[in-house]
């Protein structure tokens, strides 16, 4: 029975892929497969938090956005360096570029000072925060609470004033100067993108550590609400701190770990247009498959190890596990951090796949709740289930739109009178069907197969 479920879901996936290839072609099928697998990695991360430890993390969007911004900060070129290079190139043939050259000559020193000021501002801010913390500690039992609070607040406000004094003018310079397409922000460190994926995971893990400090003590519903809110704050920061993230201007042209389509068409590869497109996508898919297998293996080993057994024990009965001497709080935080690492890497991979960072594109429905549907449908507590769920649900999410368009088209031509306004409106609204379908799928699975397609392989959760 158990084997049958795995075989059946594998068969369904293969059929879906073959049908997609037949109907929509190789490129679409490869894209769906790649994004589906990346979503599967994110679902795996969420499954580690939910399936292993029962944590209701509704902040997936925030972690994946943190992973994506890591790609920008690690792999994009440093804008001031680009400006210096540009100045050098232009100086060699200055005809017609005099204006640009004088602008660059004016801007580069200003930017360098501004960058220094941003650094100093953050140091000042950090110093005042540490001072406030130390003051709070030393005065704890020596003066009355009200005086302590006032003193700490005064230190913090002075720190904020010092910080804003340098910072505001500096970021105004950063956000108004630049050269070339991706400018008007600080830029990154121009390191390899694969390293950026790793850093993305690490940044997400660090964020998880901080969030865990605040929110993990909360019970499930509260944790969901708190993480949802924190992820919204993360997105608000990424949207509005233009000096660091370029904000709503979006960062385009992230480096890709595989040769670009254009590069494949010239020597030494010299492929034709169609093959180059497929080869490019195949190479990326191969990379994602490798990482997925690695992550799956890690998660699998963790699940079957004594550590995994301990996590399940904590999940199923916290008091009993605590009585057995397990440090419940520490373990909760640990598993939250592990899961978030996967979410961060997934977010970084997604950003690299589309080669751009677009903060306005992060919507909770797509980046948080859809991943949840993947975990639930795949089977909470089953690692392979998460990957399968990721692929299946992503397929459904992508294909719901053309399917609905087709359905509405048929409806419009057969049932409704010709050229009726309703038919046009229906066609226009077809993309909205996907959320409806997702809702239905989630509700049906929760009602009739609460364990998901591939239920947890070990003992079921205690009721």
């Amino acid at each position, binding site marked *: 029975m158990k084997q049958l479920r795995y075989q059946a879901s594998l068969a369904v996936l293969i059929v879906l892929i073959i049908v997609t290839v037949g109907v929509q072609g190789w490129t679409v099928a490869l894209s769906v497969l790649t994004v589906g697998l990346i979503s599967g990695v994110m679902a795996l991360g969420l499954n580690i938090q939910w399936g292993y430890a*029962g944590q*209701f993390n509704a902040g997936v969007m925030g972690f994946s956005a943190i992973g994506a911004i890591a790609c920008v900060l690690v792999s994009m070129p440093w804008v001031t360096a680009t400006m210096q290079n540009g100045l050098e190139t232009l100086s060699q043939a200055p005809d017609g570029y005099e204006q640009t050259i004088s602008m660059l000559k004016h801007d580069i020193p200003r930017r360098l000072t501004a960058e220094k000021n941003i650094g100093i501002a953050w140091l000042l801010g950090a110093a005042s925060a540490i001072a406030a913390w130390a003051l709070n500690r030393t005065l704890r039992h020596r003066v009355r609470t009200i005086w302590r609070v006032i003193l700490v607040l005064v230190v913090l406000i002075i720190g904020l004033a010092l910080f804003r004094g340098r910072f505001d003018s500096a970021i105004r310079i950063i956000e108004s100067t630049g050269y070339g397409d991706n400018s008007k922000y600080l830029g990154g460190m121009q390191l390899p993108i694969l390293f950026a994926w790793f850093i993305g995971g690490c940044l997400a893990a660090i964020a998880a550590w901080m969030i865990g400090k*605040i*929110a993990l003590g*909360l*019970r*499930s*519903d*509260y944790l*969901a*609400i*708190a993480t*949802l*809110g*924190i992820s*919204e*704050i993360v997105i*608000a920061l990424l*949207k*509005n701190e233009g000096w660091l993230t370029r904000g709503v201007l979006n960062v385009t042209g992230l480096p890709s770990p595989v040769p670009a389509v254009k590069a494949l068409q010239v020597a030494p590869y010299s492929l034709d247009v169609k093959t180059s497109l497929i080869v490019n996508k195949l190479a990326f898919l191969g990379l994602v498959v490798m990482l997925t297998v690695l992550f799956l293996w890690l998660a699998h080993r963790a699940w079957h190890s004594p550590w995994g057994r301990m996590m399940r024990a904590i999940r199923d009965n916290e008091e009993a596990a605590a009585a057995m001497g397990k440090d419940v709080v520490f373990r909760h935080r640990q598993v939250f951090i592990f899961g978030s690492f996967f979410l961060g890497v997934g977010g970084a991979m997604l950003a690299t796949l589309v080669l751009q960072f677009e903060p306005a594109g992060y*919507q*909770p*429905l797509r980046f948080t*709740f859809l991943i*949840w*549907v993947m975990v*639930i449908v795949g089977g909470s507590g089953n690692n392979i289930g998460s990957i399968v769920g990721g692929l299946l649900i992503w397929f459904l999410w992508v294909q719901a739109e053309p399917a609905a368009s087709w359905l509405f088209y048929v409806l419009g031509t057969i049932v409704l009178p010709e050229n009726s306004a309703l038919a046009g*409106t229906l066609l*226009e*609204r077809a993309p*909205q*069907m*996907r*959320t*409806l*379908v*997702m*809702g*239905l799928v*989630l*509700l049906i699975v*929760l*009602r009739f197969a*609460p364990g998901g397609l591939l239920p947890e392989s070990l003992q079921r959760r205690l009721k």
Partner: protein
Amino acid sequence: MVEIMEYSTDLLNALLWSFNFLILPAITYGSTLALGALGVTLIFGILRFAHFAHGDMMAFGAMLSLIGVELLNHFGIFTYPIPAGLIFLPIAMVLTALLAIVLDKTIYQYYRSIKSPPVVVVMVSMGVMFLLNGLTRLIKGPELTPFNETRTFPAHQFDVEQLMERLGERAIQIKTDFSTNQEVVRVSEPEFVFFTVRQFKEAVGTSEGFGLDLIQLSTVVLAVTIFAALYWFLTYTWTGKSMRAYSDNEDLALLSGINPKRVVFVTWLIAGSLAAVAGTMYGLDKGYKPFTYFQMILPIFAATIVGGIGRPQGAILGGYLVAFSEIMITANYKKVANYLLPEKLEIASNLQLLGTEYKFSVSFLILLLVLLFRPTGLFRGKVL
């Protein structure tokens, strides 16, 4: 003496500015938040889960009112000075309450009967959220649609002159549609305004002022009426008392013969109709857009938890608290400071704690602070 006079005018101006830009918008926004939070807190208290689909339920209610308004306008009927959305509010309330009850019967009831843990029900409400989200977007589209959007009619459909007399000349444009070569009338129904900022300034003679329109006033009046009615209902009626008893101690309430089905039914009835009111009033003020309602679950949850879960008075207080802090923390106090400070200390830069982009984040910071330092909320609600 002259100095004191001058200073008091400055003080008055500062107050008027604050009233127009802080207090009035915060009260209006807070009323909608409080109405939404009341529903969430009742569901939290009685059904014991975080109702993630509440924002989309509000969108559903607003959408029903909007469809009513569009139908009315379609037949050439304009209800100025009363906003047509208000006329359709009762119908929207009934239908949204019906939706809530149908959702409960078809979906939530099952999980109550098998006594599943609250987390599962939260997840189910996530599914309902997707469902309603898709439904509202499918029916009315995802775009921002003001209730009094400009609508176009063929010119022969109604008496243009009479309409012009009623709505004012600026509301109506007569144009020729070049594709069909027909005369069309474009009508944008105005909002009824008691007085504008400029009228206030001219009448009183201050350099600052505030304006008041019917929608703001009716939002506040309606909200206060509903608060009073709900208070009366929960305190003095049999059903209200049984609801409170059920919320306080389920087993004890069941033992004393309270019918749980009835309690749940009434809860959804109230939560659904309040969601419709909140959605419609917000839509009348700012326009209907499904995504905005979806986002509003964040401040609404914040209001609920800040006030104390299961405490209606807490939800009301929480709603206003969240609205005021969202607006006051992101406001720019440059003008107030320049009125209050002596002229030598004129401030040129912006005096803002946080940019307006962080409005939504503020409600969450409040929520986090409350969760950390007083998890029961201000009114000592439940801790789930």
